[in-house]
């Protein structure tokens, strides 16, 4: 083999053109532009004239890192996406810039992801994933302190959450566009990426362990020592916003059942396809879905509240 090729990530998350309708594309563009605008200004202020070479080379790193794969089991291999690692080591704004660059190049060089829907892809993989990863990482650090296993746990959970949340955001956009009913897209995307996220989390934790051993300074300069709780709350808010959108994104709520009833397929309606995927893991339909999601939100808030409480208590003990 004389040449190896960089193609791009194979996980099904780069939305092609035609899969989102115009207004979803537009809303995503607006959100993405706001995010990129803030990121450019903030990372420019932090890095100054080093911004262009540093961000440029590190986006190239994200591409190259995707070549590093490892055998998971039975011939399948996991490979590394790198967004969480970038945001942990570079801070949120530089992380957004790096991942946005990667998404743009994937679309322009490899046609991986469309042009009109680029706003959505930037939003999912460049903004939602990075901010969630950073928020979760800072949150875990607040909770566990600067101990090494806190660092590793933070990296693992942050990477997993970033992959998962951007997959959910992707499913929601498809749902709003009427391309893929949320009741199918959400469990499918969330399920696949819950597994992909584990590989990502393990590698990110491994990478952080290595950085902690050789260049501990890089782990300390990335973010201000204070404001960790604020970042954790911001990450939580974004995660909640994504989850809250889910029940709204189902344009054909129970189309399957209605079709069956309308046309006398009552037999079919009684044992409608929902049996295959039981209701309780199946958000997106009427009240049960709402209940599931509300339960999820309440659960998240309780966990976050406990974490917040412990972190504040810890700080008081220290000071």
């Amino acid at each position: 083999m004389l040449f190896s090729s960089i193609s791009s990530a194979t996980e099904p998350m780069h939305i092609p053109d035609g899969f989102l309708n115009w207004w979803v594309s537009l809303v995503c563009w607006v959100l993405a532009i706001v995010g990129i605008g803030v990121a450019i200004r903030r990372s420019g202020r932090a890095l100054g004239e080093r911004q262009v070479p540093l961000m440029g080379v590190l986006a190239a790193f994200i591409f190259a890192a995707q070549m590093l794969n490892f055998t998971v089991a039975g011939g399948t291999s996991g490979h590394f996406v790198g967004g969480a690692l970038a945001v942990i080591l570079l801070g949120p704004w530089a992380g957004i810039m790096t991942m946005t660059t990667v998404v743009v190049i994937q679309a322009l060089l490899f046609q991986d992801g469309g042009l009109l829907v680029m706003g959505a892809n930037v939003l999912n993989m460049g903004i939602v994933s990075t901010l969630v990863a950073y928020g979760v990482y800072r949150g875990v650090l607040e909770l566990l302190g600067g101990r090494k296993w806190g660092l590793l746990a933070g990296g693992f959970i942050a990477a997993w959450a970033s992959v998962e949340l951007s997959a959910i955001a992707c499913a929601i956009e498809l749902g709003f566009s009427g391309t893929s009913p949320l009741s199918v897209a959400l469990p499918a995307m969330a399920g696949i990426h819950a597994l992909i996220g584990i590989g990502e989390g393990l590698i990110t934790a491994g990478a952080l362990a290595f950085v902690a051993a050789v260049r501990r300074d890089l782990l300390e300069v990335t973010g201000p020592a204070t404001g960790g709780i604020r970042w954790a709350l911001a990450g939580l808010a974004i995660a909640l916003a994504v989850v809250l959108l889910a029940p709204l994104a189902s344009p054909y709520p129970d189309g399957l059942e209605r079709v069956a009833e309308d046309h006398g397929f009552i037999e079919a309606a009684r044992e409608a396809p929902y049996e295959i995927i039981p209701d309780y893991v199946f958000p997106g339909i009427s009240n049960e879905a709402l209940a599931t999601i509300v339960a999820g939100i309440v659960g998240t808030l309780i966990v976050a509240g406990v974490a917040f409480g412990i972190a504040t208590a810890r700080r008081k003990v220290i000071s």
Partner: protein
Amino acid sequence: MIGEHIHALNGYRARTSPIHRLDARVKLVLALLFIISTVLTPDGAWHACILLTALIWSAIILSRVGMGFVQRRTAVVIPFTLAALTVIFTTPGHPVWAIWKFTVTDRGVERFISILLKSWLSIQMTVLLTACTPFPALLQAMSVLRIPGVLIAIIGFTYRYVFVIGDEALRLIRGRAARSGAPNGRGGGSLLWRARVTGGMAASLFLRSVERSERVYEAMLARGYDGKVRTLTTQPIRLGEWALILPGGLVLALIQLLARVRW
């Protein structure tokens, strides 16, 4: 293994054609107008899809990049079609046939085929655009769309260094292969251990990239870099080329109008 290098699957194909000669900015605007028009096409407007196909195929033939080349590269949307497949069951409409417990509706089939067609039309345009426009020209053209200069400069940098850092990654992989045995092609150690090794490699690559960016920055400083990226002045777009956008947009608007006529 010694001569192993990285190469990106760059979609540019050097040819001499009117489409290659066209100013990148005009091409970008026309391509986006085409994709917008395609996405706005209502479901089941087959006549509009035929017209759009005729447009893009004429452009592909005119560009001489090869129909086969373009169609091969459209394959990237295939995994995504699976995501859209469920609409054939969930869209309300007349049931057409039943597969096991599922009923397929006419509207559902129409919607599914429309999504696929629209996606296929759009991606052909993206493939054509990148096949006929060198990447640096495409980047410069992006400034027409008010994309911030800093972002464009960063993207340009990434395009240059993807090959360098990719080679660095290959060296790491070669080092790992040289130090490891792989009986029966299987990796040893536990999953956790393998993930840690890969993590170590990723971090090592990250550190090498950071250090390289520092050297690059110093080299840039030495050559007078002051935070501004200076490029060769771009040529103004000739009036005749700008003027192409008007009939192009008009044709696409007419197709949209036609797509909404039902008979």
